[in-house]
């Protein structure tokens, strides 16, 4: 198999320009938030303490960023070395996803100047799920960059350093497999203390299991999604054979998730609520249809190697996982009399973070050896123009 190599080429493309503009808008809005407070930019309220930023930037975006975690498990724990070429692109996407998620939290917390309290024993409260999640995510952000360090080193450092990094890589890899297991499950648990405030179709003691299993699914799906995107955008050879195999994993995990979800509902006697809960029923059914669609699409081997169906299945899975998290944090959550819909500012800031993520990813694949190098476009700038900037924006929608 071929080694990974930098993509090279011009940094000024349609995509980078648009994402840069969106990033600048976000920066201005964030400055505004810092000067005039959260209420000036967001629709956050005392009825909805968590808004779009927590729902998207923390819950959804870190689940999207589980590609690195999922692939690391597959390659290093289950020893499927054949997928090795997919690890680095997944890692870099994860590194951006998590880092930006972490960064956005810094703007979301109201008293950010105290944020360091989280990590000191005098303040830390071990019973708090938020404490666990925060520490875990902060640590994982660093671990992700350490995991990615060999790629940076290959470009800039002497071979000796690269060798040492590779030799000790198993340590960050092991940590990188442990931490998301912890915080992705805990992100589910985060809503357990809210009790009745979360609609019974979502509230469950098995939230950590469902959150973790769906996050891993999303991790594999994002690998397929990004694989399709990169293949298409950078005109690289199809990875469908590899992606197709991964899709079997998704099917298996999805079936596990669905069994747990529905079994849990049946056990708790909540099946009746599925159809009788008004708007909650709508979102619940929509969400479950999106979960079931990939299972059906990926049922046959023929479908699994069809890049189109594979892509649709991955997108459906990503949407399902995203909607599941959105439901959990915002739609199924609520207090009588309170309303919430993200403000334009909130939406633009979230879009800005996504844009920054895409921008960072593009810069990284051009600068560092991330993508495997056996493709014709290597070194030719003209071939590295993205087909459609908006296609890149779909990464996170």
């Amino acid at each position: 198999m071929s080694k990974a190599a930098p993509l090279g080429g011009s940094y000024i493309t349609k995509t980078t320009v648009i994402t840069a503009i969106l990033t600048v808008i976000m920066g201005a809005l964030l400055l505004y938030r810092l000067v005039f407070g959260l209420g000036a930019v967001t629709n956050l309220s005392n009825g909805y303490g968590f808004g779009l930023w927590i729902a998207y930037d923390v819950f959804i975006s870190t689940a999207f960023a589980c590609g690195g975690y999922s692939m690391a498990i597959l390659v290093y724990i289950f020893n499927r070395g054949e997928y090795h070429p997919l690890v680095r692109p997944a890692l870099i996407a994860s590194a951006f996803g998590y880092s930006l998620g972490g960064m956005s939290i810094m703007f979301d917390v109201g008293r950010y100047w105290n944020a360091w309290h989280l990590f000191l024993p005098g303040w830390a409260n071990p019973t708090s799920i938020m404490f666990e999640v925060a520490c875990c995510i902060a640590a994982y952000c660093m671990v992700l960059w350490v995991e990615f360090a060999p790629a940076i080193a290959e470009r800039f450092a002497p071979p000796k350093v690269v060798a040492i990094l590779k030799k000790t890589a198993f340590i960050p890899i092991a940590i990188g497999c442990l931490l998301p297991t912890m915080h992705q499950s805990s992100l589910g648990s985060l809503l357990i203390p809210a009790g009745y405030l979360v609609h019974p179709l979502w509230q469950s003691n098995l939230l950590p299991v469902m959150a973790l299993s769906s996050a891993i699914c999303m991790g594999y799906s994002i690998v397929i999604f990004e694989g399709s995107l990169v293949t298409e955008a950078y005109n690289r050879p199809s990875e469908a054979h590899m992606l197709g195999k991964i899709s079997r994993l998704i099917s298996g995990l999805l079936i596990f998730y669905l069994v747990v979800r529905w079994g849990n509902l049946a056990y708790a006697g909540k099946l009746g609520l599925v159809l009788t809960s008004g708007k909650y029923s709508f979102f619940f059914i929509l969400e479950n249809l999106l979960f079931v669609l990939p299972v059906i699409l990926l049922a046959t081997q023929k479908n699994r190697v069809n890049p189109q169906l594979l892509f649709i299945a991955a997108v459906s899975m990503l949407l399902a996982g995203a909607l599941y998290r959105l439901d959990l944090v915002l739609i199924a959550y609520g207090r009588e009399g309170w309303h919430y819909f993200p403000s334009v500012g909130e939406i633009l800031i979230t879009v800005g973070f996504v844009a920054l993520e895409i921008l960072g990813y593009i810069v990284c694949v051009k600068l560092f050896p991330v993508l495997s190098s056996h493709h014709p476009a290597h070194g030719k700038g003209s071939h590295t123009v993205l087909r459609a900037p908006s296609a890149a924006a779909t990464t996170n929608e």
Partner: protein
Amino acid sequence: MAFSRRNFLKGAAAGSAAAACAAATTTPAEARENLTMPPKAVGLLYDSTICVGCKACVVACRDANDTHPEFSTEEKLWDNPLDISGKTITVIKMYSEGTGQHKDQEKDGFAFMKRSCLHCVDPSCVSVCPVTAMTKDPVTGIVSHEPADCIGCRYCIVACPFAVPQFEFDKAFPKLLKCQLCKHRQAEGKIPACAEVCPTGATLFGPVTALKEEADRRLAVPAGKPNTFARKTVGSPDVHEHPNAAYVQHAYGTTEMGGTQMLLLSGVPFEKMGYPKLRERSYASEAETIQEGIYHDLIAPVALFAGLLYVARKNTKNHDEEE
């Protein structure tokens, strides 16, 4: 690298072993029961049936806690907060149904209800606060908030079953506001301002055990029979007479979420007064049981990590050799 069935099976076996090892070492931690109330806990008894809705408590609370009037109308003439907020610690709310003429009646009636911190015996906010900014006093049981510690993550706002913690969303350097039972006044030997000024004794301060007895006493008197009601502090000689109301036969807060230190009496069902039916087991105890089950003494994560380290080391070596 060539894909070999052997390698895969080896890896899978090792991975599963690590996971199983983690699972096995996870001794099922004992369920975390509801916390119990400190014996000297203090609280409030709010009796909706003798409240006249004068909002003296709201005004006194402003004075005692140095909060400023909040306007909900365009003219900004009156201090009329619609709910507790980043500017307001307590409000009296109105229930009104139909013609809204008869006090403490569910149909065609009206009634008042106090909104402020209930000071849970097993508070969610204390359990979920990542930086211990929310604390429960081990002696008085008062649930307090320390702004200097707070990071403003608002998890307490999301988790509180009663929507009590209130954040100043309109400030660049915001704080969180909640009732602390006037602990600064209690330190001076005074009682909470709302109980101090209540003209009818609808808000009564005292040890929670005494407040419970008082609530039971009121519930036991038949509706319409004259009854005496103390003002300021439970058992105080400052009493007045009033015909007993037709109470809902339950003091809210005696069981809800493992109990609260503010108890409520009402003539209108509590669900209609903004206080939902809640089970006895606290959400905090349940969430902590689950977390504790997973993270008991960190045995499971450490075991899992050890397994992962071993497997990852072995497999990275394989990859390097093959490359």
